C-alpha cells in the first residue's frame, strides 16, 4: 500500500511538473520559402504573451513553438496568424514539455 501511494505521489508530482513546464506546439504550414517568411512568422508569434521558443524549419514546413504554463494556442488563432503572415496553416499537434 505504501509503495502504491509513493508511486501515485510520484506520478502526481511528475504530472504537475510537466504541466508547469508548458506546452510544445508543432504546426505544419504550406508556403514557407525563405528567411523573410521565417522571420515574419517569428515576429508574429513572439507578440503572443507566454511564447518562449520558436523554431521554423523551412525545408520541412514545420513551426515549433514552446509556450509557458497556462498559455494555449488555438487553431483559429493560428489559421489567422499564418494567413496574415502569407502562409497556409495545415495542422497542429501539441505535447506537454
Amino acid at each position, binding site marked *: 500500500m505504501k509503495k502504491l501511494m509513493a508511486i501515485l505521489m510520484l506520478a502526481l508530482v511528475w504530472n504537475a511538473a510537466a504541466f508547469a513546464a508548458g506546452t510544445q506546439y508543432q504546426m505544419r504550414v504550406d508556403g514557407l520559402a*525563405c*528567411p*523573410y517568411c521565417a522571420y*515574419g512568422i517569428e*515576429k508574429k508569434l513572439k507578440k503572443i504573451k507566454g511564447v518562449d521558443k520558436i523554431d521554423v524549419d523551412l525545408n520541412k514546413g514545420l513551426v515549433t513553438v514552446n509556450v509557458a504554463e497556462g498559455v494555449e494556442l488555438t487553431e483559429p488563432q493560428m489559421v489567422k496568424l499564418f494567413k496574415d503572415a502569407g502562409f497556409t496553416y495545415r495542422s497542429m499537434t501539441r505535447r506537454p514539455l
Partner: protein
Amino acid sequence: MQRIILRVLGGITALLLGLVVVTWLIWIPSAKEPGYVFVAAWGERGSAPGQFNDPTGITVYGGEVFVSDARNARIQVFDFDGRFKRQFGTKGDGPGQLGRPMNLTVAGDELYVADYWNDRVQVFALDGTPRRHIGKAGEGPGEFNAPGGVVVSAKGDLYVADFYGQRIQHLRADGGFIKQWGNTGKVGIWAGEFNYPTDVALAPDGTLYVADGYNDRIQVFGPDGKFLRKWGGPFGMNIFGPFNGWFTTVTSIDIGPQGNVFVADFYNNRVQKFTANGVFLSAFGGKGREAGQFDKPIAVAVANDGTVFVADYGNNRIQKWRPKEK
C-alpha cells in the same frame, strides 16, 4: 482514318516542339560574357566574431564589407580579404539595437539597416555609433511592416522595400513620406504591383530597381517614378524557374560599377547579372557546400573594382568572386 489520326498527332507534336524551341530562344537566353571565378569564402555558424547565424544582408564601402548577421542581431565588418574588423548592434528594440537586420546600404558615410522586426530603418556611423532611426510599425505613410531593404539617393531620399506592406516607399531623409509604388498590404503581379518586395537599388541617374521577391522578377522605375520594365521568366509575371534570366525568389539587388544589375537568386543558388535593360549576361554559383557553391545566396554587393561579395545564407559564410578575364 488511322492515317488521319497519325497525321494530326504528328502535327500536334511538331507544334509542341516548335513551341519549346521558340520558348527556349525567346525566354532562355545564353550567357554573353565569361562570368565569374570564386576567390575566397569566410565564416561558419556561430556567434563569435567572424561567425554567422543567418547572414542576410551585405554591402561594401571604402574597402570594407558590412554584413547583417540576423540571428546574432549585429552588423559585422570585414576587410576585402575577410579579416574581421569590428561589430556593432545588440538584440532589442532600443536605439542602436536590432531585431532582424536585413539588406544594407551605405550613403554619406552612414550605414542604413533595414530592421525587419523593429519596423524601421536604422542609421549608424560606419564605426557603429547609432545615429538615428526612420519609421515605425504600421501601414500608414512612412510606416513599415517588415522592411527588407533600403537605398538612399544622392540628395538623401530613402527608398524602402516594405515587405509585408507590399510596397516601395519613397521618403525624405527625415522620414517624411513622398510617394509609394504598390497597393499597401495587397499582393499583385501586374506592373507596379508587388509580391513581398525584398530589396531596392538605385542607378546614378535615379532609376529605381526593385527585387520583387515572390513575383520572381525585377521591376524598374524611371527617375520620374514611371514604370519602365520588368524581367524574370516569361512576361515577368510570377513564373519561376531555373533557366538563365528566370528567378526563384529574388532577395537582393545591387548595381555594379558599369551599371549592370546583380541579383541574388535565392532558390536557384546563384547570382545572375544583367544589363541595365534586363539583358541576361552571366550567372555563377550552384548548390552545395564546397568552394564556389551556395546554399541559398540571399544578398549580393558589388565593389567599385567589380569584385562581387555574396551572403551565402545556408552555409553561414561570405563568398568573394571576381570577373573572369576575357
